[in-house]
């Protein structure tokens, strides 16, 4: 341990919800997207699921809203070290979309992509079982554009770069293909509890 002379740090809080190396950002919600925020209205938004599925399908805004509503209330964790507690998102569980397209048994991973062209890769197991959503509301209001509105992917148990803003679709694959940050040195999976920040972690 390399103790820094004269460094005490913030008052210690026993917060079992805080993954290693993270701090509580409180009311802040930093925006860290690397690209220009798109001018995307709900009428222009679509969401497609294809690749290794029985029935590829594209939903528009109204069609996606006919699926059963589902909410997430809990925490989110950014690789830059902030965590945010007690956030409330609403939208539709990804399971509901996948039930329509019916993934092949050979599908093991997915690439999620945005209307901006941003991409991120995930194991399919991280997107199923009630752990991932397409979210269009935050705190009871439409999701702000800079936070990925009209709709973003939400995978809150992984670092938040996996939760692609302005989500446009998922392509299911039988192998892992690194996405945007993953090609830029970030970890393939990004589990905050194992502190999988960079590709060497």
């Amino acid at each position, binding site marked *: *341990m*390399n*103790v*820094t*002379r*004269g*460094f*005490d*740090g*913030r008052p*210690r809080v026993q917060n079992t919800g805080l993954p290693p*190396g993270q*701090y509580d950002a409180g009311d*802040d919600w*930093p*925006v*860290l*997207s*690397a*690209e*220009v*925020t798109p001018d995307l209205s709900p009428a222009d938004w679509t969401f*497609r699921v294809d*690749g*290794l599925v029985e029935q590829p399908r594209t939903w528009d805004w109204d069609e996606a809203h006919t699926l059963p509503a589902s909410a997430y209330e809990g925490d989110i964790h*950014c690789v*830059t*070290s*902030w965590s945010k507690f007690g956030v409330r998102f609403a939208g539709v569980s990804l399971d509901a979309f996948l039930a329509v397209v019916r993934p*092949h048994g*050979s599908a093991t991973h997915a*690439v999620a*992509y*945005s*209307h*901006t*062209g*941003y*991409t991120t890769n995930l194991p399919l197991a991280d997107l199923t079982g009630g752990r991932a959503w397409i979210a269009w509301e935050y705190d009871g209001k439409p999701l702000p554009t*800079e936070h990925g509105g009209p709709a973003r992917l939400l995978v809150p148990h992984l670092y938040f770069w996996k939760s692609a803003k302005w989500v*446009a*679709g998922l*392509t*299911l*694959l*039988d*192998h892992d*293909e690194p996405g*945007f*940050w993953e*090609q*830029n*040195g*970030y970890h393939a999976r990004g589990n905050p509890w194992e502190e999988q*920040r*960079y*590709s*060497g*972690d």
Partner: protein
Amino acid sequence: MTETFAPVTRFAVPGRIAVSSRAAAEWQTATLTEVRRETPYAATFRFAVPAWQGHLPGQHLMLRLTAEDGYTAQRHYSIASPPEDSGHIELTLDHVEGGEVSGWFHSVARPGDEVEVRGPLSGFFAWPGDRPALLIGAGSGVVPLMSMVRHHRARGLSVPLRLLVSARSPEELIYAREFGAETTPVFTRSAPQGVPVGRMAAAHVAPLLAAQPEGGWEAYVCGSNAFAEHASRLLVQAGQPVDRIRIERFG
């Protein structure tokens, strides 16, 4: 049956360089050798990092402080120094109100202190010195852009490079004495006699895009989210392609 991913939308801004996962995984000791005041709120901290593998202008690192009970605080910081400054790195940090890491640097740190760093990180905002670079920053957002300016000078590069930098006042303009003909400062609260006061506007950006070098500009935008949104919109409105705008937002 194997499929590969074929994006339906144009792929966003690709990374500029391959990054070393090994360098990013290892914590190294960085010894503070010098502190230089830049403005009333910002100072530059120079470190000796003997095994530093080198970086490209625009990259950042992760820095960690450790308390006696093992508590750690880590933050991402952009690197201010150019790659030519071998074995050393410089960070320029604002004194953030209540900031536990920047507060330690501004109140406690002195030459000889040791901290830990890992990096360099992320190839996305890196500038290898190849394409014409249009740099737009505000406040401490000028830090990674200054690494590019310094690299450009150190190498005597002929590729065009321009810097538009916004600050509240001349006193708060970081690196003010180092800027040359490549730089246009914009002051939002107070300015020297004869220099207009106001927010960065289309009038600042449009002339640069009207006089594009061959192959066009690679634009690098850095600052707060509010500034990054504003500046990137100005660029798009002036005709800069969205896939040639790289944004680093300070959170």
